[in-house]
């Protein structure tokens, strides 16, 4: 409420203090008509996001196949089944690994690039920023198609480049081998995701006053000390935002896995999102799929709450 206070304080200043006008009893009057403005969005949001989400919670307690009208209530059976479904183990591990890598690498790369692009030494900074952010606007399906083609084991550009460099021993069926498939799907994710932290870090770096650096330099701080004690603290809020948004985003992974490996080879690259999709739309186990969705959502919402709270503060 910090910003609301000066605004409120400004009002009485304009209304003359003397008794000609009665002082306002309630400085913040709730307007019932405000609901008319809020209603359209709230109705759509509640009707097509909140309500279906709650319905999924109910479905997760049934053995519904997704087709027949009858939904048998089975209590927590679907959740118990999660524990003995071997694919869930793979999917959870893959989700965690994927999340870790596709958050840390883009953050580190984004920070490094932002530091470089913030330096006055580099020419063409805005052009380079455009280049590094560009993959972020591409449809993930196209990104998957591009990388699927680059990874092609027989005539893909990656193996071709390795051969040209004399590293033929390293050529590989990147997506076809279950020891490399998951890692191979992370590369395009890093390619796509680096732009976002880059932009935010760049904005944050530009927000750190030059005088801070200059006075630190005058106090005899070297480049590393200035980075450590001026730059890094200035980036802390950005770290939190980037981390929160990337965490939410990474955990939802679907498009890249679906389009690049379809969860394969075997089931080695299944993540919770794709496994939920397969259960609902391939194996007609909607109830079980809903249980997977509930778990993904609980984790995502739980992780996201601090960010959401920070955004509701004034």
């Amino acid at each position, binding site marked *: 409420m910090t910003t609301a206070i000066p605004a409120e304080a400004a009002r009485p200043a304009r209304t003359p203090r003397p008794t000609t006008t009665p002082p306002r009893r309630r400085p913040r*009057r709730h307007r019932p008509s405000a609901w008319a403005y809020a209603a359209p969005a709230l109705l759509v949001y509640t009707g097509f996001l909140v309500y279906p989400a709650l319905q999924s919670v109910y479905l997760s307690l049934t053995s519904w196949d997704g087709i027949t009208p009858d939904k048998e209530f089975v209590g927590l059976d679907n959740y118990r089944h999660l524990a003995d479904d071997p694919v869930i183990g793979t999917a959870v591990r893959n989700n965690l690994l994927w999340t870790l890598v596709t958050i840390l690498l883009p953050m580190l790369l984004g920070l490094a690039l932002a530091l470089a692009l913030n330096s006055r*030494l580099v020419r063409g900074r805005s052009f380079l920023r455009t280049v590094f952010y560009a993959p972020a606007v591409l*449809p993930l399906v196209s990104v998957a198609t591009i990388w699927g083609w680059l990874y092609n084991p027989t005539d893909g550009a990656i193996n071709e480049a390795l051969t040209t460099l004399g590293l033929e021993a390293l050529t590989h069926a990147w997506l076809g081998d279950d020891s490399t498939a998951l890692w191979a799907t992370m590369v395009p994710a890093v390619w796509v995701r680096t732009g976002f932290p880059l932009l935010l870090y760049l904005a944050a770096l530009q927000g750190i006053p030059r005088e801070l650096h200059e006075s630190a330099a005058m106090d005899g701080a070297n480049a590393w000390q200035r980075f450590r004690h001026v730059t890094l603290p200035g980036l802390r809020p*950005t770290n939190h*935002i980037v981390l929160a948004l990337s965490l939410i985003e990474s955990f939802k992974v679907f498009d890249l896995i679906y389009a690049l490996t379809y969860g394969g080879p075997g089931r080695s690259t299944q993540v919770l999102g794709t496994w939920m999709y397969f259960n609902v739309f391939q194996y007609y186990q909607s109830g079980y799929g809903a249980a997977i969705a509930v778990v993904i959502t609980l984790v995502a919402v739980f992780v996201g709450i601090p960010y959401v709270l920070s955004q509701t503060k004034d």
Partner: protein
Amino acid sequence: MAATIPASRTVRTVGASVALGLLGLVWFAPLLVLVTTALRTGADLASSGTISWPGSWTLDNFADAWKIGDFSTTYRNSLLIAVVKVPLGVAVSALLAYALAKLDLRFRRSVMFFVFLGLTVPLYIAIVPLFTMLRSVYLTDTLAGLLPAYLAFGIPFTTLVLHQFFRRVPDELIEAARIDGAGDFRIFWQFMLPLALPALVTVAILDTVATWNELLIALIMLSSPENSTLPLGMLNFSGAFSTNHTGLSAGILIAVVPILVLYALLQRWIVGGLTAGAVKG
């Protein structure tokens, strides 16, 4: 990195610029090989490999890809959905953001929490009920059937960003307009929207990109090729062209070049919006 010999500023400038430029080139390389591959003949690609300068040039790949990928249909559908969804989504979100920022909405904080929590909710949780809901009104496999979910999942972010901007409009301005006899809606229409124009453009662009790229809901809702959106068409297209790399490259370029051009032209707004949506810590 400072050299022992005090390097002149020019040398360091050139060095740093070249190093980053090379990195940028590597970063962009996937898109560059896509261009050279799309512009050469299949025979030329087979004989010289992907990483080589084309020996012969052709535009035929684009014609093939356009026809077989049925891009006229998928482009039309994606455009149609974006043209309806984005203005509608921005409009309802702007009204909500206005109520939250300036109309002293009751339970304001709770409403904000409720709506912004939607940012964290994955699509997965809603798709099955959404599908059955729309099937019961015969809206599956129609473009209109995508709208409810697209709108609902777009509202949290758009409202968040617009709320940030609306808050910054000084209350004095609104009070003054009110004293002049302007009602809530006139204030919204004549003051808030024009003042927030940069924010409106930004959220509209970001929303367009998100709508344009959406796969999961389209994959579930749509089944006929004539209703396919661009990402869905791409999925089928990449299967059909899995052995024809020149055609595949041309198809990918058809799908991504317009959005890249749009991005290059409008990036100022995108950058502004992303940083505005994330400034508070």
